[in-house]
Each structure stands twice: as structure tokens, then as C-alpha cells.
């Protein structure tokens, strides 16, 4: 007995738990456990009535900690932390035990087994809770200013959105001009608006907005401070290198992508008349009248899809992902090319046509205008060669006509190249950006936290995160805007206090924890004449990566301490009472 007063509530979730787990038996089994003052079952623990009952129990019995065994913690941890708070308990002395997704639902075939397991899980939760300490969220004041890195379409739109929220915005662009890649595009799918017009409109608004300061020929060089209050250093390249310091509360990274550059000889790249999709698009965008290549009219175009995308994973540095935009862009460019020269013959050699969603209509339109689609086998890519006559010949198999070998004479071969991550090691190192296996930056969760990174206050958007169309890039830019607003408009932010703690008596300062931490969340300090490690609570991400590297077991992660995990294991293995 530790003198703790724990309330335990086991949920039936209607029949979702109750049909497969004997909830009353679970309650019966744990009721006599040390420190358990209240143990009840409930039909729906998350209902207002039961929440109220918990609050009442807590007040009447003087509960100081709470366990709810119900659904996955992803669903209701926050709900019951709030209940704990309302009941006068510390919200971090609450434990949610997953007896639905990880018990009743997965053992619908074994009620006895599921019931025994539920008891074990609840007991582990009680054991963990017994060792919780009251924690307070780490509150930090935030600076109502945002830094946007990258002045392409996503960065421009984000900058504007941030200013509209009432934040001060600094926009840093490496290039001399704003607009990024989209500035170089003519008509774009789906509505044929020119890329150059789109960014010109955005740029005009950005330049006119007094809350936005634009730095071109500029780079982010350093970032200091901590979440909500970062000091950043911007280098501005000009006749003389100038550096300036700014205080910002959030950083939106919108650094874009690079076009895939085919290797010499890859699908004939390097031969006269073999061009990439961006090169071809430029030709079409800038064609004075008829489509021409080096003074000769272009009558036949062969497109080879998936160049630099969906590559075989056995290749060194393969880009195994789909670049998402290129099918639609190639199809759209073919329609534009056809507008220039009505009698043009266009052959599309594709692996899978991914003009998803409403872009399917463009694919149909291109077929109606005469484009022919040939499906090539994944393992037998088309071959491109130069003919003695000066033209090009593409040899391929067409799966749609029984795998027959087809030779296509072409004036121009367009390699439909994809997007690749941009080399930006300096920025990655300055911001500690998480880089995925594909080389693009990683969000915390693709659905639930799609623009946040594990570095609090650093958001990603646009094609630096993954291949995106420009509308998707802008949408994610606005998502990053909203996230910044949510963090900065309130004036302060609360960070989860489940961070690392150091036992000064056990610590001998060897520096191993500092080495293990990519977030620089540990520092060497002197306490009572002794060198020890100290956790910078606002920088710690609470991953626990420093815990197992400590040779003297001096580090614990709050909420997941050594004692708590061992107590949970004990609880899981403790034999049922009955």
C-alpha cells in the first residue's frame, strides 16, 4: 500500500467490450488490489453521466488517481485527462487501458482468455498509475511571428495566410525571385491558368502586405532558442553578405522539390530529340505558333512515363515512390500540344495511368483528341534509339494488344520525369528536420498531424514533404498556416510534460545521453559541485532515446519510468485472484 487512492472504471462500451469480456469479473478481480478505492463497470464510461459519476466518486472518496479501461488511448486520453482535472486530480495521474482494440475486439473468439487478459491489462494500468507523479504541462510564451522558408506557391500562400491571421511574417527565398517552379509554368491543369499568372497575383499581395517582410537571395543559417521563441539567423547574399537576427514563434518549411534528372542514356536521354517533361512543357508553353523542335515541326511525340519514379528498389538510390503529378501533367501538356498542331500524333507509353480523381476527365479528353495509350510491361521498359535518318525510334511492347512489339518513329521523345527531394543538408541540420527514407521531410502523422514535424513549431508543406500537385501544395501551406495560428495566437503553448528526468545522485556525467539526443535537449551543468546532465524541458521530445544509453541508469522518461514499466510487467503477470 502506498496510500494512493485510485479509482478504476471498466467500460462495457455497449457490447463492444461487454459482449466479449466479462467486465463484472474484471472489476471483481481487481477490486481488492492495493490502493484501489473505487472499482466500477460502466456501460459507456465516456458518457456525460459516467464522467459525472467519476467526478462525484473522486470528491466523495478523495481519489487522487484514475484508471479507465476502455477503448484505445488515441480516442479518449484527452477526455479522461479532462475528467481527472475536473475531479480535482492531476491529469497526468490518469492511465487509459486499452481493453477494446487490443482485447475484446481481437479476442471475440475467446471470452475466458479475453477476460483474463483484460484483468492483467487493468492491473498493469493500476500499477503504472500508483507510481505516477503530479505533472504540470510545460507552459511557454510564444512569439506571434512566423518564418516561411521558401517562396514558391506553397510558401507564398502560407505567408499570406499567416499575415491574414494577424501574425508578423518573414519570407525567406534562396533565389533572386519569388515564385519557385510554378513561376516558370504556362497553362497548368486543371483549369489552364498560367503558373506565372498565379504566382504574380500572389506575389503582388505578399509585397503589398505590411505584415510580410520578404528576403530574397537569402537563407536560414541558424536557429536557436526553444519552442515558441526561436531566434533565427538569416543570411542575405548581395554585394556584401549581410546577416540578420529575427525572433519567431513558428517556422514553415516550403522548400519544394527538384525535377528528376535522367542519367545519360536513360531511355535515350542525351540523344537529340529526347527531352524531359519540364523541358517539353516549356517548349509547348513558349511555342510561337506550331510546335517546333530546333526549327523542325514536331509531328509525332512519344511519351515515356514513370522516368525516375517507381524505380526498382534494387537500384542504388532508387526513387520507388509515385511522383503523383506527372501523369496528369503529361496528359495536360499533350492536350496543350494538340491545340498547337491539330494533326500531331501522340503516343503515351505508360505503366499505370494515375490521373486520379477529377483529372481522369483530362485523360479522357486527351484520348478524344487523338492521344494513343500503350501499356508497357514493368520489367521490359521501352528502348529509344536514333535512326540514321535523324529521327528517333521507340520500341516497346503493348500489353493492351497482347504484348505485341511495336516500333514508333518519333520526332520527339518526352521522358515523363518525376519529383525528387531537394538536396538541402544545411537546412536539415539547422532545423533538425526529420528526413524520410525517400528523402522528403516527414510529418508526425499523415492523417492526424499532416504538417507538423516532431520538432515543435517547425511545420512542413508543399513538395518538400512529398510529391504534390500545386493545389495540394497550397492546401498543405494553408494547413501549416492554421497550425501556426493555433500555436501562436493564444500567446502561450502547453507542452507535454512527459520528458526525460535525470537522477543527479546516479548521474556521473559521461555525455552519452547528449550524444544520443539529436535535439540538443541535454546539457552539462554543475549541481552542488558535481557535473551532471540536465534536461532542457522545452527541447526534449520525450522519445526516451537517452534512457537505455545511460550506463548508470540515471535517466527516466516521465510516465514511462523504469519502475513503472517493471510494475506494469508485474501487473500483466500477476495471477488472477479467482
Amino acid at each position, binding site marked *: 500500500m502506498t496510500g494512493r487512492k485510485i479509482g478504476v472504471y471498466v467500460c462495457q462500451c455497449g457490447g463492444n467490450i461487454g459482449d466479449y469480456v466479462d467486465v463484472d469479473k474484471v472489476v471483481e478481480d481487481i477490486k481488492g488490489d492495493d490502493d484501489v478505492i473505487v472499482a466500477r463497470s460502466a456501460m459507456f464510461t465516456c458518457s456525460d453521466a459516467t464522467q459525472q459519476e467519476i467526478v462525484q466518486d473522486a470528491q466523495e472518496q478523495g481519489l487522487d488517481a484514475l484508471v479507465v479501461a476502455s477503448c484505445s*488511448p488515441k480516442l479518449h486520453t484527452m477526455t479522461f485527462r479532462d475528467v481527472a482535472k475536473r475531479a480535482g486530480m492531476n491529469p497526468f495521474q490518469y492511465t487509459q487501458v486499452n481493453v*477494446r482494440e487490443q482485447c475484446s475486439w481481437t479476442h471475440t473468439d*475467446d471470452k475466458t482468455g479475453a477476460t483474463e487478459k483484460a484483468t*492483467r491489462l487493468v492491473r*498493469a494500468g493500476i500499477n503504472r498509475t500508483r507510481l505516477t507523479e503530479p505533472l504540470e504541462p510545460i507552459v511557454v510564451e510564444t512569439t506571434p511571428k512566423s518564418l516561411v522558408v521558401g517562396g514558391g506557391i506553397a510558401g507564398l500562400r502560407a505567408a499570406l495566410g499567416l499575415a491574414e491571421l494577424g501574425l508578423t511574417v518573414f519570407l525567406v527565398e534562396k533565389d533572386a525571385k519569388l515564385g519557385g517552379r510554378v513561376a516558370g509554368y504556362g497553362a497548368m491543369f486543371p483549369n489552364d491558368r498560367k503558373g506565372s499568372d498565379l504566382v504574380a497575383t500572389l506575389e503582388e499581395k505578399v509585397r503589398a502586405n505590411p505584415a510580410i517582410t520578404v528576403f530574397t537571395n537569402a537563407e536560414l543559417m541558424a536557429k536557436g532558442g526553444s519552442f515558441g521563441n526561436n531566434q533565427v539567423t538569416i543570411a542575405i547574399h548581395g554585394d556584401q553578405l549581410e546577416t540578420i537576427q529575427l525572433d519567431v514563434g513558428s517556422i514553415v518549411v516550403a522548400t519544394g522539390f527538384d525535377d528528376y534528372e535522367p542519367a545519360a542514356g536513360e531511355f535515350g536521354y542525351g540523344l537529340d530529340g529526347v527531352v524531359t517533361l519540364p523541358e517539353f512543357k516549356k517548349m509547348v508553353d513558349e511555342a510561337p505558333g506550331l510546335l517546333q523542335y530546333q526549327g523542325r515541326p514536331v509531328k509525332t511525340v512519344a511519351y515515356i512515363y514513370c522516368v525516375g519514379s517507381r524505380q526498382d528498389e534494387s537500384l542504388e538510390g532508387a526513387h520507388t515512390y509515385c511522383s503523383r503529378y506527372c501523369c496528369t501533367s503529361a496528359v495536360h501538356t499533350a492536350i496543350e500540344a494538340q491545340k498547337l498542331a491539330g494533326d500531331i500524333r501522340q503516343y503515351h507509353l505508360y505503366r499505370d495511368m494515375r490521373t486520379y480523381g477529377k483529372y481522369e476527365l483530362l485523360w479522357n479528353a486527351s484520348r478524344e483528341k487523338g492521344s494513343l495509350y500503350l501499356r508497357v510491361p514493368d520489367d521490359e521498359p521501352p528502348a529509344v534509339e536514333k535512326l540514321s535518318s535523324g529521327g528517333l525510334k521507340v520500341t516497346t511492347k503493348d500489353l493492351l494488344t497482347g504484348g505485341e512489339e511495336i516500333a514508333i518513329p518519333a520526332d520527339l521523345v518526352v521522358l515523363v520525369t518525376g519529383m525528387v527531394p531537394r538536396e538541402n543538408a544545411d537546412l536539415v541540420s539547422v532545423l533538425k528536420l526529420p528526413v524520410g527514407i525517400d528523402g522528403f521531410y516527414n510529418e508526425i502523422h499523415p492523417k492526424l498531424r499532416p504538417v507538423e514535424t516532431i520538432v515543435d513549431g517547425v511545420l512542413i508543406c508543399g513538395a518538400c514533404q512529398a510529391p504534390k500537385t500545386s493545389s495540394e501544395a497550397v492546401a498543405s501551406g494553408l494547413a501549416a498556416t492554421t497550425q501556426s495560428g493555433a500555436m501562436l495566437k493564444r500567446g502561450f503553448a502547453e507542452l507535454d510534460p512527459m520528458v526525460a528526468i535525470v537522477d543527479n545522485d546516479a548521474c556521473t556525467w559521461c555525455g552519452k545521453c547528449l550524444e544520443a539526443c539529436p535535439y540538443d535537449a541535454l546539457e552539462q551543468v554543475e549541481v552542488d559541485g558535481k557535473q551532471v546532465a540536465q534536461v532542457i524541458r522545452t527541447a526534449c521530445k520525450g522519445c526516451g532515446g537517452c534512457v*537505455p544509453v545511460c550506463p548508470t541508469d540515471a535517466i527516466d522518461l516521465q510516465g514511462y519510468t523504469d519502475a513503472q*514499466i517493471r510494475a506494469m*510487467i508485474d501487473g*500483466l503477470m500477476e*495471477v488472477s485472484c479467482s
Partner: protein
Amino acid sequence: MAEAAVQEDQAFSPRILVFSTNNISDPGIDLAGSSHMHYSPNVMVISVPCTSGIKPSWILYAMEQGFDGVFIAADGEECAYLPDCGERTAGIMTDAQAMLVEKGYEPQRVRMAAICSVCAEPFTKYMHEYARSLADLGPSRKATA
């Protein structure tokens, strides 16, 4: 518990402790449940923020308390905290194996695999496979007996 003992004699069902991660593998395991995929109720999960924070000594402790195997459902490349999470977790597993061997447990009593946030089917499959291979090894307790 006499009943359970008889059951164990008939078909030994190993107790497996799974370490999952709050953001990646735990949602994958949840999805197995919401899809009503079945594995043994002797599989029990403790979720932590990141598998790079698991202490090898916890794995040994689990064995000493009666688990027959520990499965680390790692984030692999998806870890949002640490770019080298896979390597770190593999190192933790190697250290844990050394500790187990020293105490007379087979090193196969700990294993790891990357489980993503939608890896319901792979997780279920791993649980079946791992239970089978642990059943071949027999209960962990015999090692100390």
C-alpha cells in the same frame, strides 16, 4: 489456475509481451483489433513513445516474470523522433539477447519487426508465427529450472 495449467499441457500457448509505440505501431495493433483479426490473448502490449527508449533490462525482467517472448513492434523508418531508430532498436535487441543468454534464456525470446500504423495484418501474422516458434522453444521458465 489448475485449469490453465491443464490447458497449457494440452497446447502450450506462449505469453508474449509486445512493446509498441504510441504514434506508429500501437495504431497498427489497434487496427488489427478494429478489423477483428485474432491472435492469442496471451499477447499483451505495453506502449511507449519510441522503441529506442526500451531498456534491455526490461526484456530480461519480462522473461523472469514469466513471459516466454518479447516482441518489439518498432517504428522502423517511420519513427518521427529519431532517424536512426531502427539501428538503435536493433542495438537494444542485441544487448537484450546478450543479457538473456547470460541468464540461460534463448536469444530467440526477443525479436523485432517494423510495424506501421496500418500494419494490422502483418502484426497478426507475426503474432501467430512468433507464438509457433516460441511454442517450439517451450516455456521460458524451463531455462532457469
